[in-house]
């Protein structure tokens, strides 16, 4: 009945993307992970060719978002997701290097569900991602609105 949750990862740094994916897998999450290296591709995937978001109707999505993208800021993507009637219920996890309090506040105001700062130290980074993976394995994700 319900489709398995697919994780949309929007992360411009391929290395980070790979490390995130590996560490999520290590924590035992086996869901599909769809990675995008830039904002344009991610937007096309999320909102479809017509930009209405109809393409993702009924899918359960969990969005992992980096704020520093080469072609747009993650905040713009976050805003669009939260303004779209199909996608607005999908949890968005902002995973970025910035720990600026203004930025964090702004993201939560726009409707981000979790904000995580990438730790500088790799051990901590790996640890944080694995915990995030554990979190993914227990949270309930709604299907996009029908």
């Amino acid at each position, binding site marked *: 009945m319900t489709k398995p949750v697919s994780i949309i990862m929007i992360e411009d740094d391929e290395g980070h993307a790979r*490390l995130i994916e590996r560490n999520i897998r290590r924590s035992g999450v086996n869901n599909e992970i769809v990675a995008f290296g830039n904002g344009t591709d991610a937007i096309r995937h999320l909102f479809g060719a017509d930009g209405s978001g109809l393409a993702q109707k009924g899918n359960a999505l969990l969005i992992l978002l980096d704020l520093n993208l080469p072609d747009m800021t993650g905040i713009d993507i976050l805003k669009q997701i939260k303004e779209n009637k199909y996608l607005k219920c999908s949890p968005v996890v902002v995973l970025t290097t910035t720990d600026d309090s203004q930025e964090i506040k702004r993201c939560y105001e726009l409707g981000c569900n979790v904000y995580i700062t990438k730790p500088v130290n790799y051990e901590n980074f790996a640890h944080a991602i694995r915990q995030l993976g554990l979190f993914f394995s227990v949270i309930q994700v709604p299907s996009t609105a029908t």
Partner: protein
Amino acid sequence: VTAEAQRRRAFWQILLFAAGLLVLTVISGGSVYLVNKARQDSQWVIHTIEVENQVNTLLLEIRRAESAARGYLLTGGADFKTDHEKAVAAIIPALDKLTRLIGDNPAQRDSIEKLSSAIETRLGQFARDLDLIGQGQPEEAAAMVREAAAGDTTTMIRDLAAVMIQEEERLFRLRAANADRSQTLAASMTGIGSGLVVLLALISVVLVRRSARARNEAEARLRDANINLEATVDERTADLREANNEIQRFAYIVSHDLRSPLVNIMGFTSELEELGGDIFRRIGGLTRVAADGPPLAPDPLSGPLSSPLGEVALEGPDKQLSADFSEALGFIKSSIAKMDRLISAILNLTREGRREFVPVRIDTRELIEAIVSTLAHQAAEAEAEIHVAPLPNITSDRLALEQIFSNLIDNAIKYLKQGVPGEIRIRGRTKLGYAIFEISDNGRGIDPKDHQRIFDLFRRAGTQDKPGQGIGLAHVRTLVRRLGGTMSVSSELNTGSTFTITLPLTWNASNRNADS
């Protein structure tokens, strides 16, 4: 341009003033001279008239004497005789007076001499006439009178007098013309001089008005400048703040962007390490399989940290390979760790720069004693004693002050001389609205050539036997500057160092706060 113009204007004014003074002096001198000359000329004119007058008087007296003598001769009346004698008596003084009066004129002197002799002759004739009349010989006397009348003495006297009067009239005309000229000259001189003075005064007035206008303009400009100064200062301050913010943002962005690839390097190095561990374990297992029996089951839970390579004993060249691999990874990891520390330091510094400072009243002594107590353990290890003298209280940011003093005291403890009991003193005083703090030690000291260097980021000086990144003093100086103060060091090698911090007694956050 303005300074040059002002100097020129002042020069012209002085010149004008001098010219006016000169003209006035010349006019005054000239006037005095000319007036004197005119007076003299007038005197000469009067003198001429007097001379003429005197000549006429003389002639009159002679005629009187003559007519009286005739009367006496005709009537023999005593009245006529008395009259004649009076006239004769007046002739000589009149002649003397005339002689005196014309003493200056050589031409007239000739005439007067002739006149004198003529008059003398005539007087002699009179005397003889009177004698003859007195002796009762009127006929003789009448004959003499006729003879005298026929003779040229009287004519001569008349002619001489006429010549003299003519001469005097000539002189009168000359002198009158002279006097006239002098007066005209004096009048025109006074006129021209007055005109010049008026002209100079006018020029002066124009110049004074112009300079007054220039001064007014300058005053207006000064007022404007004063009004604008505040605005300009605000503008510059805003620019500076903007530039400062930009530097902060730049440092922040750079350190962030550097950190991102570093996470990859660290991450994949860890992955590689894990991978290496797996590979060598397999090699070990395979070698053992060949030697002993079934391979060891791989441990799925072993992470990159919990899997040292030494689980499976390797032998010979395999062991060497494993050691080389570990060594290479070790270098990579330690370099990464160092780079990570440096970038984190920059990040912390920029974060510190972005933190908003809150000025509060601080009991400085209490603050420093709290720091000293947290450092008590290190101090005891280094056998150091810390003396805190009474310190002035200030209004500033508490956290910043804590960081400043703990860094400096920590440095003082850290860089003491080996084997010498440390002595660290913290003193303070106030001066002109500033508090001056001194942290001095008897430690190893700093070479004067390094005094600037130690405040630079990532730079250290002296023997590198203590851990550190070369950040502390750079950080402290940034904080001190943000608090509106300055800091300096005085030190010699092996004699200890003194760090001096000057902070405003009351720091006003509004004028320095970067993010406000």
